[in-house]
């Protein structure tokens, strides 16, 4: 029998990788649960509030995006807009060329993964170096992140030690501390040599134009201390209305992502560095990127635009834990990715239309979501869309026969009576491949067809029951 693509991938996964993904994501879920529980008891009021603020924001996005543009401009920031992947890449390249920048350091940003910025910059003669430790390892391995917060969840220390040796960062050594020290020594030279920093943003406040950027390693701070031009690539949905809303989101983001009260470095940027400040960008650019978000806003899955990219949904997901991030064949894995990736794919929906089926609809992703996105509901809507678009559905048994029986009472009754024949038939001889597959690991119970039907017909009427 044909399998879903995600199952096919999961079956080929190295057992060591599966174990690492499973234990690391489970640990993430545990930490989140402990911290939110001990700090807030029941975190639901806070999650639901954050969700309501984001839902309000995306449903008034025209107003807030315009306000953000005005605030940023008043802060001296140059604001650009990009509709597609190509537009966003080109916008970055244009800024780099206009400002004479040849070397770029990058702080982890999922949107730059979406548009494959590094490859594009390299093709155009710009050196672009990832500075988050995990992302740097991804870059030298020509690999892709398998988790949005922990990009190298699928690699072990020996893989990394080999890559460092290959890149000339010292002899083979798989001690995590040594690996980190070597990256520290190498990357700080890159910060100081670079002309421009490319970052994402976690939040942009419409009323003040403040941009918030969080990292644990301090790499984004170093990017913004070493370079003279700052370019921030930001999805149009990243807005929050007011500065005060940041208290709500910052109290949720790190706790949900890594179980910390706050991420180590939380930066609030509202423009280039002060003239008196010797280190830091002299100019700042913001590129607001659509890349499928506006279409998502127009769809019945717009709630996914509330997402603050904490990764809690993938940590808790039984399918993600079993399949790992690459199984989702897109930048965003896990339950978030199963909704967002096919949506952002636009005309390519058909290629990722199977992802919404990669879920048991257990609902854990909704329960842990810091902005309370009803992910299972969105998955169902997308399954429906895949059906309406007649996408192939491998792994689902053919339902035509059942549909015929279920809509014709006469046929149903006959089938219920005839079913007894199953008890008399050697099961191995029934020529239905799906049934044979099923029977490999299960046995059929004795036929009881028609029992419910006859009970339902003969049950006492409800009114009679209630009489004393």
């Amino acid at each position, binding site marked *: 029998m044909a399998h879903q693509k995600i199952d096919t991938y999961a079956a080929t996964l190295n057992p060591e990788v599966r174990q*690492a993904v499973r234990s*690391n994501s489970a640990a993430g879920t545990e930490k989140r649960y402990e911290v939110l529980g*001990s*700090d*807030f008891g029941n975190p639901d009021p*806070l999650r639901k*509030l954050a969700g309501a603020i984001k839902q*309000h924001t995306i*449903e008034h996005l*025209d107003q807030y*995006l315009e306000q953000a543009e005005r605030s940023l401009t008043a*802060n001296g920031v140059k604001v*650009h*807009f990009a*509709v597609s992947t190509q537009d966003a890449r080109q916008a970055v390249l244009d800024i780099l060329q206009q400002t004479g920048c040849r070397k770029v350091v990058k702080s982890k940003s999922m949107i730059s993964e979406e548009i494959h910025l590094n490859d594009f910059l390299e093709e155009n003669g710009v050196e672009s170096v990832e500075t*988050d*430790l995990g992302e740097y*390892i991804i870059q030298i391995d020509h690999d892709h992140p398998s988790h949005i917060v922990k*990009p190298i969840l699928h690699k*072990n220390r020996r893989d*990394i030690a080999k890559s460092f040796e290959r890149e000339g960062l010292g002899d083979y050594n798989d001690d*995590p501390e040594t690996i*980190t020290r070597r*990256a*520290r020594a190498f*990357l*700080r030279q890159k910060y100081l040599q670079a002309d421009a920093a490319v970052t994402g943003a976690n939040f942009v406040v419409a009323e003040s134009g403040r941009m918030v950027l969080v990292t*644990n*390693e*301090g*790499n984004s*701070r170093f990017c*913004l201390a070493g370079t003279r031009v700052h370019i921030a690539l930001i999805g149009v949905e990243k807005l929050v209305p007011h*500065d*005060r809303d*940041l*208290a709500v989101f*910052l*109290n949720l983001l790190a706790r949900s992502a*890594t179980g910390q009260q*706050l*991420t*180590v*470095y*939380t*930066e*609030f940027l509202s423009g*280039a*560095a*002060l003239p*008196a*400040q*010797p*280190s*830091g960008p002299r100019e700042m650019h913001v590129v607001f990127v*659509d890349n499928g978000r*506006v279409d998502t*806003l*127009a769809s019945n899955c*717009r709630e996914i635009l509330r997402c603050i990219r904490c990764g809690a949904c993938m940590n808790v997901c039984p399918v993600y834990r079993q399949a790992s991030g690459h199984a989702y064949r897109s930048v965003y894995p896990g339950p978030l990715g199963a909704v967002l990736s096919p949506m952002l794919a636009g005309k390519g929906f058909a290629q990722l239309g199977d992802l919404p089926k990669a879920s048991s609809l257990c609902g854990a992703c909704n329960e842990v979501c810091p902005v309370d996105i009803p992910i299972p509901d969105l998955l169902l809507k997308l399954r429906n869309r895949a059906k309406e678009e007649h996408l192939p559905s491998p792994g689902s048994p053919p339902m035509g026969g059942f549909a015929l029986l279920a809509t014709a009472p006469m046929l149903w009754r006959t089938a219920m009576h005839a079913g007894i024949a199953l008890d008399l038939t050697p099961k191995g001889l029934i020529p239905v491949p799906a049934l044979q597959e099923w029977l490999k690991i299960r046995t059929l119970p004795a036929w009881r067809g028609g029992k419910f039907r006859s009970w339902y017909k003969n049950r006492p009427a409800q009114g009679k029951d209630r009489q004393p």
Partner: protein
Amino acid sequence: MSHRDQIFQGIRQAITALPERAAYPDYDTAAVTTPRWLPAAEENETLFRKRLTGTGGFFFESPADCAAWLKKDGAKSVYLAPEVAHLAADFAAHLEVVPAYTRDAVDRIDAAVTVAHGAIAESGTVILTDSGTPDRLAALAPWWHIAVVPRTGLVRTIGEAIAALPADPGIVWVTGPSKTADVEGILIQGVHGPGRQGSFFL
């Protein structure tokens, strides 16, 4: 049509099609974001010390204590920001004091003492600003960073710190030493920023 107009037109079309739109929720920041363990009676200073230590940071009773610890922990040279230049004698007793921080000193100067704008007690966070920090690099590149906290700049909660964000283009909250758990989930301190983060009050 420009990219900007195209995006705004798409957003307006999507939004006007909605039967109703979610209102901005009314909320009280302190009521929803204050951790339930936050002790009502404990002073901010005591709380800050406790929380800073909890993040892997260090708290010192005095500049002299700090200087002695830096030496013991392996630092040889220290840069003192102009605002704390008057503490030079305390540090000179243990370390070589460097009066200026320059870009080419990134790997040469072991430690830096800078002045924070303030701090957040509930999270052990120090608040640095562009106007208050002499050089972004000085507070980031050395292995040891000491952020001196003015007692008047200490607030209790994250919510209060957000409500009092200074008008500065480059504010950074630092909560403990630079960290990663990218390699097999093992916690390593001192990735790009300081491996040791400390504070004392002034």
